[in-house]
C-alpha cells in the first residue's frame, strides 16, 4: 500500500509540476505571475479533447494541436495584455491584474464555447494499466511523469547551453542591459510566453487524460496548486518547480492515506508554510533573485 500510494503521489505531483513549469518560465523572464496560465491549461485540454473526439486525431497529434493552440493564446495574451503595459512603465501589479482579466475572459469564453458540463476523453486512452508486482500504474501516468521529467531536463539544457537560452537568461537578469548588448528582448519575451503557454496547453491534455474531467473551471484549482508549487520550489527555478510539484502531490496523497482525508489540503499547504519558514526563498530559490527588478 505504501508504494502504491507513493506512485499515486508522484503521478499527482507530476501534473502539478507540469503546470508549475509554465508559471516558472514566465516568472523567471518577466517577473510576472501569470494568473491566466490555469485557463490556458484548460483551453489546451478542451482543444485536445475536440481534436481527439471530433476530428478523430491520434492522442499525440491532439497533444501537439493543444500545444499550438496554447502558444497562439500565449502570443495573443502577450500582445494584447502584457506588451501595452510594459511600454508604459506602469506599476508592477498592473500585469498581474491584467492576466487575471485574461483568465476571467478565457473562462467565460470556455463556458460559452464548450458548455458547463464536465467532459472526458474516450476511455480507450486512459484504460491501459500496467501491473508491476501488485502495483498498478496507468500508461497516462507514466507518460505524464516521463514528459514532465523530460521537459525539465530539456528546458534546463536549452536555457544553459543554447544561444536563445542564453538570451532568455540575459533578459531575465536585466531587460535594459540585455537590450544594450544586442538581445532582441521583445522577441525573447514573446517566445518565452508562447513556450510557457504551449506547455500549459499540453499539460491540459495530459491532466485531462489522467483525471478525465475537463470543464471550464478546472484551471482555477490546478492554477492555484501550480502557484503554490512555484513559491515552494523557488520563484523562477525549473528544478524547483519539478521537485516542489512532486512534494506537494506526495504530501496531499499521504495526508489522505495516513491521516484524515478532510485535512488533505490543510496538511499539504501547512507543510508548504512550514517549508517556507525554514527556506523563505523556496527549496531551490536563491536569495539574490528575490531582489529582482
Amino acid at each position, binding site marked *: 500500500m505504501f508504494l502504491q500510494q507513493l506512485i499515486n503521489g508522484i503521478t499527482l505531483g507530476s501534473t502539478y509540476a507540469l503546470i508549475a513549469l509554465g508559471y516558472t518560465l514566465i516568472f523567471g523572464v518577466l517577473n510576472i505571475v501569470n494568473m491566466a496560465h490555469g485557463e490556458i491549461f484548460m483551453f489546451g485540454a478542451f482543444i485536445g479533447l475536440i481534436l481527439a473526439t471530433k476530428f478523430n486525431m491520434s492522442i499525440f497529434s491532439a497533444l501537439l494541436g493543444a500545444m499550438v493552440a496554447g502558444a497562439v493564446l500565449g502570443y495573443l495574451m502577450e500582445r494584447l495584455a502584457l506588451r501595452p503595459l510594459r511600454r508604459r512603465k506602469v506599476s508592477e501589479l498592473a500585469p498581474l491584474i491584467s492576466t487575471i482579466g485574461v483568465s476571467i475572459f478565457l473562462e467565460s469564453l470556455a*463556458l460559452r464555447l464548450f458548455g*458547463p*458540463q464536465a467532459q472526458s476523453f474516450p476511455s480507450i486512452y486512459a484504460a491501459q494499466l500496467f501491473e508491476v508486482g501488485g502495483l498498478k500504474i496507468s500508461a497516462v501516468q507514466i507518460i505524464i511523469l516521463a514528459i514532465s521529467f523530460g521537459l525539465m531536463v530539456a528546458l534546463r539544457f536549452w536555457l544553459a547551453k543554447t544561444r536563445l537560452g542564453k538570451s532568455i537568461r540575459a533578459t531575465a537578469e536585466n531587460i535594459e542591459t540585455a537590450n544594450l548588448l544586442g538581445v532582441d528582448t521583445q522577441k525573447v519575451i514573446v517566445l518565452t510566453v508562447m513556450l510557457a503557454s504551449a506547455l500549459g496547453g499540453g499539460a491540459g491534455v495530459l491532466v485531462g487524460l489522467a483525471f*478525465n474531467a475537463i470543464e471550464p473551471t478546472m484551471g482555477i484549482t490546478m492554477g492555484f496548486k501550480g502557484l503554490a508549487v512555484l513559491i515552494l520550489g523557488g520563484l523562477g527555478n525549473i528544478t524547483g518547480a519539478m521537485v516542489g510539484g512532486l512534494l506537494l502531490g506526495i504530501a496531499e496523497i499521504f495526508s489522505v492515506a495516513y491521516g484524515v482525508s478532510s485535512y488533505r489540503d490543510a496538511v499539504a499547504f501547512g507543510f508548504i508554510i512550514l517549508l517556507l519558514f525554514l527556506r523563505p526563498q523556496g527549496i531551490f530559490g536563491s536569495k539574490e533573485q528575490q531582489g529582482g527588478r
Partner: protein
Amino acid sequence: MVTRSIKKKGIVSLFLMVLTVMVLGCSSEKSGNKGAASDGSTAKIGVVSYLTGAGAAYGESIRQGLELASDEVNAKGKVKLELIFEDSKGEKNEAINAVNKLIHKDNVLSLIGPTLSGEMFAVGPIVNQEGVPIMGTSLTVEGITEIGDYVFRNSLPDSAAIPQSVKKAKEKFNLKKVAIMYSDNNDLAVSGFKIFEKTLKEIGVEVIAVETFADKNTDFSAQLTKIATLNPDAIMVAGLYQEAALILKKAREIGITVPVVGNNGFNSPQLIKSAGNAADGAIVASPWFPGKDDAKVKSFIAAYKAKYKKEPDQFAAQAYDALQIMAIAIEKTGSVTDRQKLRDTLATVKDYSGVTGKFAFDEKRNPSMDVTVLVVKDGQFTELK
C-alpha cells in the same frame, strides 16, 4: 495642462454616457414590467436553477422539465404561466440575488427552485419572510420545509430514499462491511453520509472506513487505494454526479468491483455518460423510473424526447410534476397575484398523480411517494429486484 483637460472632458463625457445608458435601461425595463403586469391573466413564476457550472446538468434538466410542463399547461388554457429563469451557478449568494430580483423586480407569484439544498437554506428564510410560496424540485436534505410555512418540496428527502437503497443492497449482496465516501463541502453529501451511517448501524452492517473528498476534486486515488486494501463488500458514496463518476472510474480502474450505493446525486444519466462501463453496479433509489409501465410516464418521455432529443432524468420528471402541481393550485385559487391563497391551496394538494407516481403533500409540506431502487446494468438504469 492641455492633455489633462482633455482627459477630464473624456471622463465627464464617459460618465454622461454611462448615466444615459443607465437611465435608458431603467426606463425600458419599467415599460417591460408594465406590459407583463397589465396582462392580468398570466401567473409569473420565478425559477432559480443551477444553469452554469459543475452541476449544470441538474439545472438544465430542471429547466427543460419545467418548460415542457409550462407548454402543456398553457396549451390547456385554464391558467397561463410565464416562467422567468435565473441562474444561481450553484452558489448561495447568487441564489439570494436571484430570488431578490424575482420577488422585487419581476414581482412573481411563486418560486420554483433552487437546485441545491444549501442554496435553499440560504434563500428559504428570505422568501418565507416575503410570504412567497417556494417549491424545491431537487432538494433532498433534512430540514428544508422546516425553514417556514411557505417552503414546499416535491422531491423525496434522502432520509426516505437512502435507507431503501441500502436495505435492498444488503439483502441482495449480503453486505457485512462497507466503506463510505462523501464530499465534505456539500450539504447534500454530508446529510447523505449521516443517513448512510445511521441506516447501516440500524441494519447491522459494519462501516470499516470513512473517507472524504471535496466538490470539484479530480483525484481520488489515495482514498480508493486505502479502501481497496480493506476489501469492503460495497462502497457508499454521497456526492454529485461529476465526482461520483470519477470515483466509479478510478475504483474500477484499481480493481474494486463491488457495488457502489449512491445518494440522490447518482440520479442522472450524466453519471453513466461520464463513467461509461465503470458505472455498472451503481445503485440508487429514485421515485422516477423511466421503465415504468404507466401511460403518463410514457407520454412524458415521448414529449420530452421530441422536444429535447434526449431521455428525461429524475430532475426533469420532478420539475415537470412540480409545475403541474403548482398549476393545479393556481387554477383552484383563481388568482394570479394572491400568494397567501396559493400557499394555503398548495398545502392541501393530495391526489395528484404525476410522472413520479402518486403524490401528496404531508402536513410538513414534504411529499409522500413510492421509490424504486435502481441499479446500472450495461449502461442503463434498471430496477434492482
